[in-house]
């Protein structure tokens, strides 16, 4: 489903070329739960941006569901993000002063294929999947706890029924207890609903929740093993 071939990303700063990713190649199949692990500055965030169709590699090929993302226009990349990718961020990025439901429905207004009448049902399904209690659905997002907020963000990532869920340090802003709840949610989504989950983290303990760990350092894959 995901196929990366010799992905290189370089920046030119003041005439010198800095390569953040160097000839990175790997494949991720449907239904996998993969952690991409590496210290800060290793290039894992850049890799996530490329996998999430937010950025293009300098060279190399990235195929998502058989489509070469490198060849797509801005609009087509936006459509890919809308339909095939669900982002979960470290800092949740929920709309403040908005209800949980409104936050979860937000991606649907940019997806022209989903009829307005089905939105509510989809949101309810996504919120049930992350295990958020019904009485909290109408709360404002800034009234929730960190763990609840991150579960709302996961529900938002699920609503378009994406091919992959990309989670960038999803537990980085949470204490270990609520972090564990969030990681359990990913596990459940992967095991029970068969969602493909890619977890980006610097934390080995977090990465160990996944079924496979790709370790990255200085822009290169140093290990790729199941755990």
């Amino acid at each position, binding site marked *: 489903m995901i196929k990366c071939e010799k992905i290189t990303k370089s920046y030119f700063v003041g005439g010198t070329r800095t390569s953040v990713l160097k000839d990175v190649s790997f494949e991720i199949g449907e239904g996998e739960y993969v952690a991409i692990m590496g210290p800060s500055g290793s290039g894992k965030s850049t890799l996530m*941006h490329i996998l*999430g169709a*937010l*950025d293009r590699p300098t060279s190399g090929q990235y195929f998502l569901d058989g489509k070469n993302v490198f060849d797509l226009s*801005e*609009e087509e990349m*936006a*459509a890919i*993000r*809308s*339909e095939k990718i669900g*982002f979960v*961020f470290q800092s949740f*990025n929920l*709309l403040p*002063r*908005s209800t949980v439901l409104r936050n979860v429905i*937000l*991606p649907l*207004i*940019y*997806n*022209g294929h989903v009829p*307005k009448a089905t939105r509510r049902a989809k949101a309810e399904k996504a919120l049930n999947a992350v295990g958020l209690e019904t009485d909290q659905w109408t709360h404002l997002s800034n009234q929730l706890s960190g763990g609840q907020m991150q579960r709302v963000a996961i529900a*938002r990532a699920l609503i*378009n029924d994406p091919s992959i869920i990309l989670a960038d340090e999803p537990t980085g802003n949470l204490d270990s207890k609520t972090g564990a709840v969030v990681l359990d949610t990913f596990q459940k989504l992967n095991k029970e609903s068969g969602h493909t989950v890619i977890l980006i983290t610097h934390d080995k303990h977090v990465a160990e929740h996944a079924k496979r760990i790709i370790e990255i350092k200085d822009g290169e894959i140093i290990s790729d093993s199941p755990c």
Partner: protein
Amino acid sequence: MIFSDLFEETIFSMSSNKSRSALTILGIVIGIASVIALISVGQGTSKGITDRIESLGTNLLVVMPGQQRQAGNIVRGGMGSSQTLTLEDAEAIKTGVTDITAVAPTVSARKQVAVKGKNTNTSIYGIDTSYFGIKNIEMELGAQITDQQIKSRAKVAVLGPTTRDDLFDVEANPVGQKIKISGQEFTVIGVTKAKGGTGMGSSDDLIYIPLATAQQYIIGNQSISNINIQVSSADLMSFVQAQVQELLLQRHRIADATQADFSIMNQADMLSAMSSVADTLTLLLAAIAGISLLVGGIGIMNMMLTTVTERTREIGLRKSLGATSNDISSQFLAESVSLTFIGGIIGIIVGWGASLLIGKLGSLTTVITLWSVLLSVGVSTLVGVVFGYYPSRRAAKLDPIDALRYQ
């Protein structure tokens, strides 16, 4: 992104920062309200001038005597000082010129008028029976001057309402009373209805007496002061003016038109001259109001730029959720257009109220025209598009990765 979503997002975004939206709208309200109010003053002035001139009669040509010229005398008298127009000229116009509905020769002079201890100085108009018809003058009390009274040189007078107020009590009925003009005793037979207006050209402060009576007792000669000609249609004004010009030159045996001893005032010319002054005034007022609208527009741009900066992370988020650049820019554009549209609607109401208030409290007449309302709505929406475009493009061009990292 469908329209109803765009609408909901816009409402949500505006209401999430109510006081800032309200202040921005206020800027537009002031701009639009001043456009509406000032244009209404300009239009009111214009209408006032038009009404005033038209109240003096419609489709009117007035022949006035020219400058006095005597052989060997280089001293020239003022316009209208000569005694070159005669009743025969008026008769000749009546029979020799086509497309006219009425001809009314008049004589006028300013005289002291006295009644039982009160006196005033006013214009005395010697008129014939067609005069009231031409000038649209109606009677408040009593009767008009009749043909019989003109022929018999009767000493009767019709008073303007202001003169009546000066000589008798306000709103009194002076019919049958005696007044003295230049030592001659006249009987009041009527009072005309007020036409409004003061100063030069007012038809309220004067006394009408029969033409022949005026010539004999007031002026003391057979000359006339001017000839009012009513033309049958507005399109024929110039045509009739040319005919009258030719006829009088011929009668006065003058070959060169520049040497004419009379002049013809065309009411349409006067109207257009005055209207152009009023239009310039309207334009000037609109320009002043336009400046405040421009300032309001800059306020919109300022607010939108602040909003874009504040919501940078949110823009990055929306892009990561699948929003295209167009989705983002239309969201910001919709917000600025909504702000100016709401501002425009409130501005029209406020401006309307202000112009009614100006009309009530001040001495100015105000007229609100449909075009000024439509113009304001159009301009305010345009202001939203113009001043919202740059911030919305800036939002749309944000790189989602940078925007998401923005603190």
